[in-house]
């Protein structure tokens, strides 16, 4: 019945909601260039769900691109392999800043990774429970305000990034003995966030966190940097070890929360889907520091990374599985 019988004319992408705004922006530009092109279809499914679909196979019913807020996992790569979806191109499109922020009416926090670790860990320094209720319990220099931190849910890549970039260093600082533990134990001690109230899992919707912060000046929020930038008239970034989250500090690496963002593309689809190559080329023209994506909150990757990505696109260099974990 379907007149397209087994082929499709538009590009399809699935995956992370963090990368979604950037890919959609490129998709829009792609179509603005020529309105006769079929508009790409970009789904926001989360990286995990996206990877699962992406690696289901090759062909018109499977997406060409997956947006990822983390690298592909080895198990996912193996699934791709099993389903004949290899080779795939791994393209880093830039970085996402994980920022801590408070309301402009807030108490003007200045925190360290250690403070954050001690306030939010489920097992601070290996203890069974975290008894800290106010920031002062953590660090006498901080105000006696109840700890209330809005952050992403346990399955979110932003949360993993937060745990890895801020909690873990804070953990080793506060509790050096942890290095002697097994890696699993270390994870439990360093990365597990408390679930007894002070850390509030606020879902995937970052705008909601922004609004909750405005309504509740004593609270702290953890979310993507772009939301902080868009709402700088209401929110203030919280400096960590004296460094405030700004585009420059995150791009330069002095602010601790930055993680790479990727797209993965099936090489086999490059010839079968009209415009896919142009799409990638367009992507590469938009991710520079003065590109359009940065206006939307992307943190541009360093020059060498961008060059490497362009090379991957041009020469269709497949991902090397040995670099995965």
């Amino acid at each position, binding site marked *: 019945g379907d007149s397209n019988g087994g082929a499709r004319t538009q590009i*399809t992408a699935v995956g992370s909601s963090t990368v979604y705004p950037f890919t959609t922006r490129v998709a829009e530009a792609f179509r603005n*260039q020529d309105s*006769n092109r079929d*508009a790409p*279809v970009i789904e926001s499914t989360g990286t995990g769900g996206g990877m699962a679909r992406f690696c289901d196979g090759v062909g018109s019913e499977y997406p060409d691109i997956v947006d990822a807020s983390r690298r592909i996992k080895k198990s996912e790569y193996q699934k791709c392999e099993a389903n004949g979806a290899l080779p795939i191109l791994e393209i880093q499109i830039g970085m996402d800043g994980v920022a801590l922020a408070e309301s402009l009416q807030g108490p003007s926090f200045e925190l360290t990774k250690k403070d954050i670790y001690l306030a939010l860990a489920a097992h601070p320094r290996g203890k069974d429970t975290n008894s800290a209720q106010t920031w002062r319990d953590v660090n006498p220099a901080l105000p006696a305000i109840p700890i209330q931190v809005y952050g992403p849910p346990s399955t979110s890549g932003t949360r993993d990034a937060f745990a890895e970039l801020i909690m873990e260093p804070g953990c080793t600082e506060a509790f050096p003995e942890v290095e002697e533990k097994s890696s699993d134990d270390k994870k439990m001690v360093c990365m597990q966030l408390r679930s007894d109230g002070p850390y509030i899992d606020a879902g995937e919707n970052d705008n909601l966190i922004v609004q909750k912060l405005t309504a509740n000046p004593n609270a702290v929020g953890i979310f993507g940097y772009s939301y902080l930038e868009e709402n700088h008239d209401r929110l203030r970034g919280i400096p960590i070890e004296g460094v405030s989250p700004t585009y420059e500090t995150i791009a330069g690496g002095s602010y601790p929360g930055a993680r790479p963002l990727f797209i993965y593309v099936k090489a086999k689809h490059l010839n079968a889907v009209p415009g896919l190559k142009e799409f990638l080329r367009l992507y590469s023209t938009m991710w520079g520091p003065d590109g359009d994506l940065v206006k939307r909150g992307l943190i541009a990757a360093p020059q060498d990374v961008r060059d490497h990505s362009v090379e991957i696109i041009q020469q269709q260099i497949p991902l090397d599985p040995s670099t995965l974990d």
Partner: protein
Amino acid sequence: MSDPLMPELPSAGGGSIAPRQPTDWTTDAMRQRIRKRYARERRFRRLGLVAVVMSAAFLAFLLVTMASQGLGGFFRTEVALPIDFPQTGIEVDKASLDQPGADLALAGAGLENIVGTAAIAAFGDYGPNVISDNAWLTVREAIKHDPSILDGRAVIHVPASAEIDRAISETGTPEAEAAVTTLQAENAITEGFNWRFLSASDSTDPTQVGIWGALKGSFFTMLVTFLIAFPVGVLAAIYLEEYAPKNRWTDLVEVSINNLAAVPSIIFGLLGLAVFLGTWTLFGHKVGPLLPRSAALVGGLTLALMIMPVIVIASRNAIKAVPPSIRDAALGIGASKVQVVFHHVLPLALPGILTGTIIGMARALGETAPLLLVGMRAFIATPPDSLTDKATVLPVQIFLWSDEVSRGFVEKTSAAIIVLLVFLLAMNAIAIYLRNKFETRW
């Protein structure tokens, strides 16, 4: 011949029954009791009124909030942008502008930069922030519409940026406020109804977004949902109430239908994914996917499965409430079972069936979770033209916009909610009309 028709009354049949005086309603105890009953009656009635009023007040509050936030979304600001084309050095072959490649040609000629430069020329360094990022598209359309403007200086009304929009409707950044003041002084700014909002599709730029694509998607999806869920639900209800023998098997069907109503909607998404979009191997052949992903057809089918239990349950109750004497009457003059059902039971049960349909369809219209899994939570920039085209729906659009970084989306989100509610009302109006028409009391 005293009593030809009836026998004499049996003289002493129930004589054993003690006579009783009529109840004395004037005793204090009785009066008090009646007062209490009346008080209870009044309280009960007031409670009912309170329930209705509070529910309605809650709704009114929601609606007023939405309306106050969303009305701005229906208006847009335009800025008169003067562009001196010859000076920009744009080079395009005017003859090719009615060819299919015109878009690409103009984009390739650097129109975007030209417009940016023109904005700086007209409004100073803040200029590019005054006009929408996609203002150049408007300019492109203008050129395509009338290539002769390339020969000289033209003033083109382009959409203002979201910042300017906000500075006008509420309070924006100081720079934007300043820009608005100067623009207003120059009479370069106009406000008007945002037709684009009703005619365009999704975009990443709040000044360019429109609801038409999602509206059409919702329409197609609801159409499929209704065409599947309503007949199947009603027919299933008829079978279960009127035909099925009352035994374990019907109990099983009943329980499983009731249970389906409690299944989280996202799980229906999993089902839709597996059944309509999955691939199976049958006798060594790969079969599927049956239907294209992200299409209104799949979304509609998935939602139909989701709301079918609601319709079945409501319909069964409505059918059950039709008095048996009506069935007897029709059967008694030789109507067949099918005739009894379709001539009498169904019309009488229709109000209740429609109630189930209304709340079921309302639920389907507002649902997002299952559509995520069948690919409708997506950025789709062109409105669908058929049931199998890639499409998204209003609530998904609302959900996606509510998560957008740009603040300009806030009022668009509310405006989209208003559109959704209007759609809901329009959809229900027919059903409600029919329901009022068919309601009989006996």
